[in-house]
């Protein structure tokens, strides 16, 4: 009962937030959005605590072929927890960001779109049919595009339009794949169509179309062209949401499709792996040569998404081994990477926003003296940096360690080399920022503005989460055990 209540609140309360923040008068908007955020976080927490095993929930009692079912398992709940953590921190940060006198008044547009984005992400992680996932993807895209246009200049509008057209083309490719798959399998529910026979050419065509569409939306290496512009131009809280959460949604669907539905894809997964390796190397080099911090962080997202796509060959090989512990390690490592990258990238964008607010520019050279002026921001940048590089104690270390050991264990040496080289490249751009931050400020620098304390606290909260993820790993792994495609038989 509590479980069902929590589940439906996770889905419905954000959309109540959309309506409420649109309709309520200005003075009630802030307490109302605080209330909605708290309620959703409580519901996600209750769902995570009460999760013992994967379960299905039929919305208003309609069964699978006609109604929409929810499929709740460890992966879905882990993504909900990531979304909740990042969205909670971003809402606190945005509160400070939009109340500060220096920025204009787009707060009216921010809150409905923010809750719309949160709600569509929550729904996407829970639904079990591929068409409803398409609708959620579109809702998510519309909210994120509209959030980018909050920056209100021609450059932001152009970036938003490029993003929208790319994402729309990608979703039609996905929809066509879903249509073909429905014609072939007679169902839209991924749990019912699994496992798809590996020698069915029509189903393979559907998978190719869906994958092509999703990597366009998820900005995998050759199709990432829209990402740096869109993510770097948006206001800081929006960039954090886009880079940490929005690009994870297509990856989540791909993970379901390639690991849990098409269980037999021995060669095709290496295509995704090779593109991922290209993304790591090309994205990291681009990040190192950027002169603007926001663009640097955006290119770092391109690179880090590459690691997520290395997951497909690793998990495919894992599915064919008999070693249960090795399979479980690979699966947990992949999801943990998505989680730790989300938290680290969100905190990086929030910190960049703090520095921009204090110094009015995001030029790398203007960071001189930032360590003395905004020490908390530089501390969080350092924490996020060690997570991206993969140094302990951070979530990124655990995730990278598991990916690396899995790659070596399964004999996938090229991927292991790319993982290690990528860490080295990541340290290049992380330390480049720290280098400038610790230089003595030159006398010519303009007087710095103060930033509201709540923004610093939001960034510090995410920094704490990064460290906690490096220490309390077992707590997250316990959630992932529910409904894992690689169960450990006999384990408690």
């Amino acid at each position, binding site marked *: 009962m509590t479980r069902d209540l929590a589940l439906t609140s996770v889905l419905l309360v954000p959309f109540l937030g959309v309506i409420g923040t649109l309709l309520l008068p200005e003075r009630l908007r802030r307490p109302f959005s605080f209330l909605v955020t708290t309620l959703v976080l409580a519901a996600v927490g209750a769902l995570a605590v009460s999760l013992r095993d994967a379960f299905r929930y039929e919305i208003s009692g309609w069964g699978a072929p006609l109604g929409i079912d929810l499929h709740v398992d460890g992966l879905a709940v882990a993504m909900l927890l990531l979304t909740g953590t990042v969205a909670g921190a971003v809402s606190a940060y945005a509160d400070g960001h939009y109340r500060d006198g220096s920025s204009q008044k787009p707060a009216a547009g921010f809150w409905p779109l923010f809750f719309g984005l949160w709600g569509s992400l929550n729904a996407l992680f829970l639904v079990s049919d591929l068409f409803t996932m398409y609708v959620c993807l579109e809702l998510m895209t519309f909210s994120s*595009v*509209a959030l980018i246009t909050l920056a209100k200049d021609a450059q932001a509008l*152009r970036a938003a*339009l490029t993003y929208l*057209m790319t994402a729309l083309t990608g979703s*039609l490719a996905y*929809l066509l794949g879903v*249509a073909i798959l429905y014609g072939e399998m007679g169902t839209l529910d991924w749990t019912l169509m699994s496992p798809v026979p590996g020698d069915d050419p029509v189903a393979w065509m559907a998978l190719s179309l869906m994958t092509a569409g999703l990597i366009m939306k998820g900005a995998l290496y050759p199709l990432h062209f829209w990402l740096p512009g869109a993510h770097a131009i948006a206001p800081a809280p929006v960039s954090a949401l886009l880079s940490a959460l929005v690009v994870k949604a297509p990856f989540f669907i791909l993970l379901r499709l390639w690991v849990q539905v098409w269980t037999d894809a021995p060669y095709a997964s290496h295509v995704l792996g090779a593109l991922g390796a290209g993304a790591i190397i090309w994205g990291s080099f681009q990040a190192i040569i950027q002169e603007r911090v926001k663009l640097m962080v955006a290119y770092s997202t391109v690179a880090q998404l590459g690691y997520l796509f290395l997951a497909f060959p690793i998990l495919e090989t894992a599915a064919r081994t008999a070693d249960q512990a090795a399979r479980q390690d690979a699966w947990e490592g992949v999801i943990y990477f998505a989680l730790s990258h989300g938290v680290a990238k969100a905190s990086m964008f929030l910190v960049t926003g703090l520095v921009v607010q204090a110094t009015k520019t995001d030029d790398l050279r203007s960071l001189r003296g930032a360590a003395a002026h905004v020490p908390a921001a530089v501390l969080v940048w350092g924490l996020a940096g060690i997570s991206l590089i993969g140094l302990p104690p951070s979530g990124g270390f655990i995730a990278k360690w598991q990916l690396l050991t899995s790659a070596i264990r399964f004999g996938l040496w090229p991927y292991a080399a790319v993982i290690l080289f990528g860490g080295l490249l990541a340290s290049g751009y992380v330390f480049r920022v720290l280098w400038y931050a610790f230089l003595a400020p030159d006398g010519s620098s303009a007087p710095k503005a103060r930033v509201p304390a709540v923004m610093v606290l939001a960034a510090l909260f995410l920094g704490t989460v990064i460290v906690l993820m490096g220490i309390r790993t077992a707590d997250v792994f316990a959630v992932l055990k529910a409904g894992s495609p690689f169960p450990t038989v006999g384990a408690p």
Partner: protein
Amino acid sequence: MIAELSSPFLLYGAVGCLLIGMGLYSLALHTHVYRRILAWNALGGGVFLFLGAIAKRNAYGGSSDPLPQALVITGIVVSVSATALALAIARRLQTEERGNGA
């Protein structure tokens, strides 16, 4: 062969694929934003027609499969909102650029 081609679902499917091809071709060819939005709509129309063809193919007795029809209706709602959003942004971009250029 000709008799097969004239069966409605094959015809719908073929026209749908033709529209998809035309839409993709124009999306790749054009840079002007209104043409791209139109091309995207043609592409969407093709996908919906393809779904309609599947509904017709799965027909049981006299009635078509209702599920793809429901998907098409939802898809049309989504694509109308997408078109509206794209046009709104394109228009604001145009006014913004005019304002700066004048």
